[in-house]
């Protein structure tokens, strides 16, 4: 039987892959604390990439199965998240020039968690717009 065009992504698979990706990231961070040899450190840093690739492929496949309105909502959400993150990065870079920011509390690696937050905010705003 043909899958309906609006079936969307497999959410359970997406949750499993998201958890695997986060776990692999956590494992990479832990390994980077433990190992000292540069080749092992590089291998540890690259550990999450296969899980990320699987996660990405599942999302792309899921988006292709969404109906046209949901695809537009996703596009608006991604654009919203991307631009808001860009503004955050630009502001952070200007603040770094203006004052000395504590690198342990406020650096570029603290910015990336904002990207999914902005994405979900963008999805919420776009969904409300078409309700």
């Amino acid at each position: 039987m043909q899958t309906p065009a609006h079936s969307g992504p497999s959410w359970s698979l997406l949750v499993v892959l998201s958890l695997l990706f986060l776990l692999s990231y956590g494992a990479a961070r832990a390994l980077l604390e433990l190992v000292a040899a540069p080749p092992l450190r590089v291998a540890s840093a690259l550990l999450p990439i296969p899980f990320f690739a699987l996660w990405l492929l599942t999302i792309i496949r899921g988006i292709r199965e969404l109906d046209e309105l949901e695809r537009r909502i996703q596009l608006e959400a991604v654009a919203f998240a991307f631009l808001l993150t860009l503004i955050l990065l630009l502001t952070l870079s200007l603040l770094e020039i203006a004052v000395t920011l504590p690198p342990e509390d406020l650096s570029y690696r603290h910015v990336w968690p904002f990207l999914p937050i902005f994405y979900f905010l963008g999805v919420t705003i776009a969904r409300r717009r078409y309700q």
Partner: protein
Amino acid sequence: MNNRLRVLRAERNWSQAQLAEYLEVSRQTVNAIETGKYDPSLPLAFKIGKLFGKPIEEIFFPDSGRAAKS
């Protein structure tokens, strides 16, 4: 763009969910089209026309504000 989708659906006593199933889109999409918040793509508009047995210009038409400008 305005449309007569809600009227045509009501004439057939279809729910939004039923129409969404026939068109293979989500119920949210049907609702957004009916309320004029979303204009469907040309393929979907043709699919709607085919389902109701009408040409798309009998279902979709420009709103008066835009028509006056063009």
